[in-house]
């Protein structure tokens, strides 16, 4: 967290977030899209069908929206890296028959043919390279759900241009992530109160950012 890379990310995030450039919200970005509070989000491919086709304003009037599905943003000159995560499936301790049925189901569900069907209807990415490679051969324009179709075209573009990165396995990864996320959110929320209540100077905001970063690094480092 003391690396130059992290500080660079911090600098581009914190001040923008405090100024209202990023939503500080404990929930799905699609929620804020429903009311037009967000115009752009970085999210999971699996959430594509949750984004509303209409946004509702406070007076209950509605407006139809169109989406553009873009590859992950990168810093100028930066490496093109995309975070890759997956949903897990587990078999709970049940009878042997249930265990066997669950295992058969997962085997069926993750077979390339079924996996591809699921991908084309939901937006979830394939879990095997074989299914992924079949995506290239699929006619994406025939997918019933236009958002899934458009998103998959972007995914294929990213597959060619980006390196996919997945976090190393760690038993307390989820706890670490939640702790980090809530701490970051709290720091930004507190900073927002400070800035909006006492100063609107950019210099003060930069000083606050540096101070919070230091505290943040010490607190979590």
């Amino acid at each position, binding site marked *: 967290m003391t690396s130059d890379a992290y500080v660079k990310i911090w600098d581009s995030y914190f001040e923008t977030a405090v100024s209202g450039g990023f939503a500080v919200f404990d929930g799905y970005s699609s929620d804020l899209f*429903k009311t037009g509070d967000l115009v752009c989000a970085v999210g999971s491919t699996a959430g594509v069908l949750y984004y509303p086709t209409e946004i*509702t304003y406070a007076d*209950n009037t509605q407006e139809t929206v169109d989406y553009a599905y873009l590859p992950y943003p990168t810093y100028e000159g930066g490496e093109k890296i995309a975070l890759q995560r997956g949903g897990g499936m587990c078999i709970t301790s049940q009878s042997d028959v249930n265990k066997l049925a669950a295992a058969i189901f997962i085997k069926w569900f993750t077979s390339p043919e079924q996996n591809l069907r699921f991908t084309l209807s939901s937006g979830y990415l394939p879990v095997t390279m074989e299914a992924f490679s079949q995506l290239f051969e699929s006619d994406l324009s025939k997918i019933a759900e236009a958002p899934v179709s458009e998103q998959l075209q972007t995914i294929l573009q990213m597959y060619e241009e980006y390196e996919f990165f997945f976090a190393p396995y760690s038993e307390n990864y989820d706890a670490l992530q939640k702790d980090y996320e809530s701490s970051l959110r709290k720091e930004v929320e507190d900073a927002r109160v400070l800035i909006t209540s006492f100063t609107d100077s950019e210099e003060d905001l930069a000083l606050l950012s540096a101070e919070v970063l230091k505290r943040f690094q010490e607190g979590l480092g």
Partner: protein
Amino acid sequence: MHPSGKGFRIFSRIAATPVSIRIRFMGFVFLLVSILFLLVIMMLYLTGTLTVGQKESGEYFAQSLRHTKADIELDFGRTSMQAIDMSETVSSSMEDFLSDHGIQPSDLEAHPEILEELLDDQFDRLLFSLEKSGTSGAFIILDATVNPSLENASTSRSALYVRNMEPNAVSAGTPNMTMLHGFPDISRQQGYSLNSIWSMEFDLSMMPEYEEIRAASQGESTLSQLYLWSEARPLLGSNEDIMMCIVPLLDENGQFFGVCGFEVSGMLFKLRYSPDTTAYKRVTSLICPVQGDNFLMVGKSLCGGDDNSIRTILSDTQSDPDRTAMKAGKDALSIHIYRFASSDQTVTDALRNRYFVGLHETVTLLPSDSVFKDQVFSLMLLMPESEYSTMLGKNNIKIVFLCALFILVGVLLAVLMSRKFAAPILKDLSKLAIEGDAEIEGDGEDPMKTPEIMAILAQIRSRHPRTLVSDAPDELFDDFLAKIRRLTPTEKQIVLRFLEDKSTQDVLNEMFISASTLKTHNSHIYAKLDAVSRDELQLYFRLIEKTGRLEDLRKALSQS
């Protein structure tokens, strides 16, 4: 009266056809066994032994229906009470709130600016009621809209509608609540997400009963007389069916200003009221409205258990669920047969051919003095007929096996008994054919054992004392000798060995021929001598022996 008819003539013809004694007796024994078998089957039917599968399933349906009905009436009744309680507290609280703002509840429509604050004030109460009720959703719908100028303002109602996405006991500690309808800021301030099919206001097309309740509220009825349960219908924007318990919101003057209540989702119904599937895998429970005479509207029902069996059929046959019903047909012992029916007689052949078995019973969801007492719901327990038949088939497999065993034993018995019965008769008849060889009775080596044949032989001897075999005509020998001459030398050698009563193996060894060659020779020999078997040939030999001309025969055979 003479028996007549085609059947009798056929029977007479069969009876007149020459059939061996053994076959006749076998038929007789088999007939006897079959009659006994049919009698046993009839007794099993009369005593109810063969209907054991049907009786068991009938008892299962009756018992399961009784328990599920009791559970539903108890739970739905409790939910109704809680909905009435919520209506009273919400009405009172809102009235106080509006009073502080100088607004009458009945004038709410003229004050859209107050709606968000008014509903926000009820959020905790609604959430508490939802958690306490254990239902899948709770709502307050006000008779007002936030934007009266919109085109759909007359059907768009300001609401607070919270759903529990996992309404089961396991997650009861941390319920997954989302807001289906309501002001988004209320949800966000309270830390709840908007439902994936969220819309700010409630569309009254989801609640056709709204106007009925409003109209009924004009009278003097109490809340317990004014609430109702809606039939099941899908949530707008989703395919999940829900039923709603709807209670009017009335101010202290009895003026209607909205409704509140709870929902029971298809998932919750399935979790709570699925029948026991230990014995029957595809049994389904349905709560459905009833129209007319037992017209059970399955398309407007909530299903527990394997609802695919019905939903898939409706989907496969492209049937309109809103107009598709089931009608109870004839009883199969203690259970009904249910066939699809349609209010406009448009049931397709594909749908007409699918049917279920089970039971149904009316469930009481409203008090007897309810304004909506004509609304009738039934609880059905159904099983696809195919599974029912399979189940009965499995139950009766032992009986079928026993039947097969019984028939097999009958056949074996018939064969053995006929053999035992016919053997001495045939033997005596064989002796009768030779006549002189037969010892009628007394101390002979092999006396006859059939008195009837013994009597016949005695009669023959008394009428034709000269026709003993020992006096057999010479023509028999001459004729046979003429046939002998037609044999080839090899065939004569074979017959000679037969005459000497040599075994087949001896013949093969002595003549250095194979079994198949001997078989070929035999067929030629039998053809030339007009015999069908070696036994018959032996009979000829014995007859010739009786005439004392066996040596002549031997000579004839010895000549090349």
